């Protein structure tokens, strides 16, 4: 098929480490459909049609934060989405206590940017790691994640099903590592080992402004060694790299993980500009300055370049694995009774390891 048109496809963000300045994207103005252009069929117009459809439908994104209290989880969420998205911001004072057991609380927001609408759900896990005995602290969280998969599966196997199944599956779980500077603690390893099998985990070093750059690098290296030693696959997982191009981009990311972040919702005047930062007596830590911390890299990964990919891995890999497990377990039941074991973790733990 002759193709003589000179028009560009939509701009595609492939470079991850481009300028960290705002990569504000306006939809590329589509070239006029010149009928006189012999040979132009118009197949590529489907991209514009897809974009229109997506804009109309809106997007959903579900992000979970896990870590002990005091690590700045809420602040980081607020910084990421530049608004008070965390539950904490809406709480009244009496709720500010550490719960006796792990609770799972989610809150949704409708946000919009340049015509793109998104339903953002932030899932908080207060109480994690705060108990004296933290054994099996990962279980309620695993239960919750599996329950979302279960809910989606039930919808999907209905005979009369909704046009768009509401997606409450956890797309991404940010795990906060306290900035000890040494290595991962047993609770960190336990949690990530179990959960990395069912959800995309993005580990971050919280409150990274307490580490010098050398301490930070050393800590990161130790963490990466620990992760490898325990066979913990965090996002972006090596085995899901699609092609060589993907691998190059993702390798760069894997070399930086875990991101050392600082969060803030306060703005300060720095060099004539208003910037988000943390003011200390020895200076202002600029959150979005990559020389100070890696918040910008985290934001770009989660939101600007890999958000769709994170959702895709959740739906086409983690969810499918859950579904396979679930459907297989029904077939191996000795009796016809299906006790829905979606949430009872011990049996599943065995099965998931068998995979």
């Amino acid at each position, binding site marked *: 098929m002759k193709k003589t048109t000179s028009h560009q496809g939509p701009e595609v963000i492939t470079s991850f480490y481009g300028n960290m300045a705002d990569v504000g994207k306006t939809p590329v103005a589509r070239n006029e459909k010149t009928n006189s252009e012999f040979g132009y069929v118009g*197949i590529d117009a*489907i991209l514009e049609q897809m974009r229109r459809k997506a804009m109309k439908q809106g997007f959903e994104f579900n992000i979970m934060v896990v870590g002990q209290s005091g690590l700045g989880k809420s602040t980081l969420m607020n910084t990421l989405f530049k608004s008070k998205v965390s539950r904490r911001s809406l709480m009244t004072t009496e709720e500010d206590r550490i719960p006796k057991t792990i609770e799972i609380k989610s809150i949704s927001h*409708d946000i919009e940017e340049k015509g793109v609408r998104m339903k953002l759900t932030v899932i908080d896990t207060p109480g994690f790691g705060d108990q004296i005995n933290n054994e099996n602290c990962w279980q309620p969280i695993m239960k919750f994640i599996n329950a979302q998969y279960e809910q989606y599966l039930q919808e999907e196997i209905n005979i009369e099903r909704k046009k768009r199944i509401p997606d409450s599956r956890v797309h991404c779980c940010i795990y906060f590592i306290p900035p000890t500077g040494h290595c991962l603690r047993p609770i960190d390893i336990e949690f990530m080992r179990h959960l990395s099998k069912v959800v995309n985990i993005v580990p971050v070093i919280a409150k990274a402004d307490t580490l010098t750059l050398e301490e930070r690098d050393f800590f990161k290296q130790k963490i990466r060694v620990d992760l490898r030693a325990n066979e913990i696959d965090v996002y972006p997982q090596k085995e899901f790299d699609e092609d060589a191009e993907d691998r190059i981009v993702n390798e760069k990311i894997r070399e930086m993980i875990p991101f050392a972040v600082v969060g803030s919702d306060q703005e300060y005047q720095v060099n004539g500009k208003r910037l988000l930062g943390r003011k200390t007596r020895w200076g202002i830590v600029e959150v979005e300055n990559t020389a100070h911390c890696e918040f910008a890299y985290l934001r770009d990964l989660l939101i600007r370049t890999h958000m*769709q990919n994170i959702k895709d891995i959740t739906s086409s890999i983690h969810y499918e694995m859950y579904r396979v497990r679930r459907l297989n377990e029904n077939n191996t039941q000795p009796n016809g009774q*299906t006790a829905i074991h979606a949430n009872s973790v011990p049996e599943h733990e065995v099965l998931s390891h068998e995979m």
Partner: protein
Amino acid sequence: GFKTWKSSFACLISVKKNEEKRNLSLGGHVGFDSLPDQLVSKSVTQGFCFNILCVGETGIGKSTLMNTLFNTMFENEEASHYQNGVYLRPRTYDLQESNVHLKLTIVDTVGFGDQINKEESYKPIVDYIDTQFENYLQEELKIKRSLFNYHDTRIHICLYFISPTGHSLKSLDLVTMKKLDSKVNIIPIIAKADTISKSELHKFKIKIMSELVSNGVQIYQFPTDDEAVTEINSSMNAHLPFAVVGSVEEVKVGNKAVRARQYPWGVVQVENESHCDFVKLREMLIRVNMEDLREQTHARHYELYRRCKLEEMGFKDTDPDSQPFSLQETYEAKRKEFLGDLQRKEEEMRQLFVNKVKETEGELKEKERELHEKFEQLKRMHQEEKRKVEEKRRELEEEMNAFNRRKVAAETLSLSQPLKKDKDKKK
């Protein structure tokens, strides 16, 4: 079962339900406005599928129109008019334009309208459409499935070619379209429109549309709910059915080469909107609504097929107590049923085999008995013979003995007698 699961999550679910959903204004540029681009970029990598079904009589111009639409010479031998049935011929092509890869499948209905008895003509078409739905459903129901790599062959659009008689629809057309309208998006087009004059065409179009409406045939409506395309789509809806002309030959008009059909009395230009509706068709089918066609196929026609099929297979969403059924429970039940059937059949076969064996055994035994009898009989005969012979021998022996005795007696007598005689002589 489901109840316990549900109750154990009541607290979590209720928390979720109580979640506040708020419209939040952002304090700066976050960056998720790049999401549509991310989505499009992923689709570009994956590539797209589009499947067109062309229904129309042999020679009506289906292949030519496809070549013209996609500006490609798809390989096509002319079809014969002597097929004894309708059969569907799908052909898949890989097309590319800028960075978009399209896997295009064109399905031709060979032999449509050629038979003398056309009552069953629509069946192969409906069957083909259903088969594609079935294949997708099978993939969707698999345990280990890969829907994201699946080559989707479901028909996204059916172009129905109407003969340019100028009068009305043929009853074959009405019947066929009626059978197809709940299974596929239909766009009716008037083929070889250069054989109709403008005024006749106008009347023809009105007649066709009113016949479709009065027969309850649902054709595809270009969607008007998205403001970006409401205007163009609603104006195009009014031009249905599109009167098209196809051609891949170039004719020089003025100083340009255009695709056209050259007649002694003039040149019909394919891309001239005052000559025919080809441009409108291309605009609607490809440049504006391709994605909507794919979406309608999946969200409406496929869902309907799936619902009917699952219900037919005996699945339900709720059982008599209106507790939601797990599809898996029903699967399990069906599987048990099937295994039970299998077992029963096995049993039956075994029984049959045993019976046959018994039968043959019986026959063999019978034969054996017969043989035995015969043997006994022969033996008896032989014994009888032997006895007779024995008896004869004895008789003979007796005779011999009797004779010998007489002989001896006679000899003894003759011995004593001769002495007497000699005495007489000596005197």
